[in-house]
């Protein structure tokens, strides 16, 4: 690891981090009412997925169209814990079998399935939030990458997995809540998560975790591993011939992205109060890819801004012109791919960054370095 020539952040990198932290932790909470803040909190949960995609897709060249699977699995693990807490025998006294989740009762399930039992414990649930998606990602990654399956074919297999898992969850409604999902989650260890105060606290937790995830992702990116990842993307065979185990690296980054997505899913469940199979499917998985693409598939900061921007546009557009929104979203996909493949970050680096640097008077050698870091493809 050559730490000297490869610092954690350049000076402008630290500046970007400070700006992002200020926006998330100061500006939004002060400027937005609790309702809008909660919405932003929800968007930020998608940003976890986008961060993972930057590493996995932008840097590693592995496009997964099934990130919703990991987001959903993380969210379901959290939801199972919260649902069990909400289904105490007192709360569910009117059911024919009190003490089990309401949807099980509706589906004539009379006892809690064994694999739900461990989710009564919060530590286990938190462990499962990360572990279940990562194990799942490992199985997929191991099967695919050791056989050198990649590219478009990997993308459609992940997509098929997403479709299959959705059908499984919907089909097993007695155990999973089916198409309704797991709804009406109320408290976390007795703490009511539905109040405005709780939502504000959860927002800060979410924003804090996101910044931590960003730092972690950056740590991966600047490490030797991050360099290798880019090398694998650009010339996989040369890396392999140099004696590296390419499959292991790919599996790791895929699992890492899955873990990030899972944290996002768990935070989603906490902030929104339910989890539904609509997150596991094809559509949200691809939408999350477009968040990363709009932000700039190579830039970790871009991923977060891209997610916020697309979701803000989606919410405000769809309030006024739902018809136009779908055209706009489709057009955005096409435009980003065809005209701005590096997204917002690319535009920023190209047009704004030099000016800002000149204004700040730091346009020296240092910045050129930061430049190439934010956008290593160029």
């Amino acid at each position, binding site marked *: 690891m050559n730490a000297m020539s490869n610092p954690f952040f350049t000076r402008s990198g630290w500046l970007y981090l400070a700006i992002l932290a200020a926006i998330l932790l100061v500006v939004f909470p002060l400027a937005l009412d609790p309702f809008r803040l909660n919405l932003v909190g929800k968007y930020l949960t998608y940003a976890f997925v986008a961060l993972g995609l930057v590493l996995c897709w932008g840097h590693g060249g592995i496009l997964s169209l099934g990130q919703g699977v990991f987001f959903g699995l993380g969210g379901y693990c959290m939801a199972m814990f919260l649902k069990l807490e909400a289904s105490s025998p007192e709360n569910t006294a009117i059911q024919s079998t009190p003490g089990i989740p309401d949807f099980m009762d509706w589906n004539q399930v009379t006892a809690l399935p064994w694999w739900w039992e461990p989710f009564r414990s919060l530590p286990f649930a938190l462990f499962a939030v990360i572990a279940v998606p990562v194990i799942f990602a490992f199985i997929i990654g191991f099967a695919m990458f050791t056989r050198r399956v990649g590219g478009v074919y990997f993308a459609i297999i992940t997509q098929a997995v997403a479709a299959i898992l959705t059908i499984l969850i919907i089909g097993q409604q007695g155990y999973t809540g089916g198409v309704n999902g797991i709804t009406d989650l109320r408290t976390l260890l007795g703490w009511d998560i539905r109040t405005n105060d709780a939502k504000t606290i959860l927002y800060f937790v979410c924003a804090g975790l996101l910044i931590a995830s960003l730092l972690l992702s950056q740590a991966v990116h600047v490490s030797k591993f991050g360099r290798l990842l880019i090398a694998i993307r650009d010339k996989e065979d040369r890396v392999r011939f140099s004696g590296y185990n390419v499959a292991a690296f790919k599996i790791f980054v895929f699992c890492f992205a899955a873990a990030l997505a899972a944290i996002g899913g768990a935070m989603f469940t906490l902030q929104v109060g339910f989890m539904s199979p*609509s*997150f596991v499917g094809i559509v949200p998985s691809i939408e999350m890819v477009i968040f990363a693409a709009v932000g700039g598939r190579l830039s970790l900061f871009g991923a977060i801004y891209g997610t916020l921007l697309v979701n803000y546009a989606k919410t405000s557009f*769809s309030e*006024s012109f739902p018809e136009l929104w779908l055209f706009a979203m489709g057009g955005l996909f096409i435009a980003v791919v065809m005209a701005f493949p590096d997204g917002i970050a690319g535009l920023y680096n190209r047009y704004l960054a030099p000016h800002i640097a000149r204004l700040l008077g730091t346009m020296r050698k240092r910045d050129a370095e930061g430049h190439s870091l934010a956008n290593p493809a160029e």
Partner: protein
Amino acid sequence: MTHSRSRGAGFRMSRRQLMAGIASISILASAGIPALAQDKPPTSEINTTGLAVTDDTVTVGILHSITGTMAISETGSVQAEKLAIEQINAMGGVLGRKIEYIQEDGASDWPTFAEKAKKLLVQDKVASVFGCWTSASRKAVLPVFEQYNGMLYYPTFYEGLEESPNVIYTGQEATQQIIAGIDWVAKEKGAKTFYLLGSDYIWPRTSNKIARKHIEKLGLEVVGEEYYPLGHTQFNSVINKIRLKKPDVIYAIVVGGSNVAFYKQLKAAGIDMTKEKPLLLTISVTEDEIRGIGGENIEGAYAAMKYFQSLDNENNKEFVSEFKKMWGDDMVIGDVTQAAYLGPWLWKAAVEKAGSFDIDKVREASPDIELDTAPEGYVKIHPNHHLWSKTRIGHAMPDGQYEVVYETEELMEPDPFPEGYQ
């Protein structure tokens, strides 16, 4: 937001519809102003909780999917709700206030429904919301309505097992659709054996559970029960099984795009429903769905609903003609569309009885609210927030309409937690 109110209404209209709309607005202007001039309670008295009520207007929300897969079904409900609101405004509004609506798109996505419901209640402070269609969307918004104390008028026939103080269910709960229908085929058609079939989610499963209990209670037999994933398009195997089991009645609760596939394949497989061997009884195909299926493909089937477009009464004739005037002559009206139309009227009646827009007072006033102008006939809100309504059996005609062949004498009591059927 102010833009969306006017554009939300006008955006999708054809020119003819727009002209009709303009005409009715001018009627509204001439009829509405004198009404407003009469003694009108001051806003501070009738709105003590900060809802979006001004001296002249009251704002309500419409929350349905107008994009995504559910837009197919929910479009009719949106149209009916807008018609009702326009008619109420033409009569002078509610407590002298003209109704304005904010329409939000649930986009067939349950989390979006929750988000938009919250927006309507928290940010727009709407006085009531007319919306949702699927059970999943209702389940998603329910905690929001209970937490922020809103009022939802939910139009769809559904599985029951729910009774929220914040929802008025203007459609039937399961027993109101099922029991009379099965009694009828057993008595009139001498049915002995049933094959239950449904899409795989909570409503068909719960409904079939009730149907099975009732069938067994009558001493008859269920010879098969099957579920197919939502969106399934291949039904040849189950059709073979039906042919093998030779049931007297196919009891079908297939929904959405699967519906079209099922009935087309059933017809193509040579099962002629007009021969009634087997007879097909459904609770999921309204006139709206028949448009997609094609009248010739479902001719001869029976449906158990509370409303059919062909109902022969004055209220309904006027409703059908107004609906077509507003939305076009080629429109058809199904059971849910009519139930959605009841929403704004029931809300108006409750507000006027309470003399207030406050949610708590409206809730208190809601039980025993009656409406004798409903297209389905007389309806009344039960203390459990569901409607008393009749069950009717319709016989599908090749033109896509149902001919009413039977209706219950009495109104059926809504019973969302039916004893002995769980």
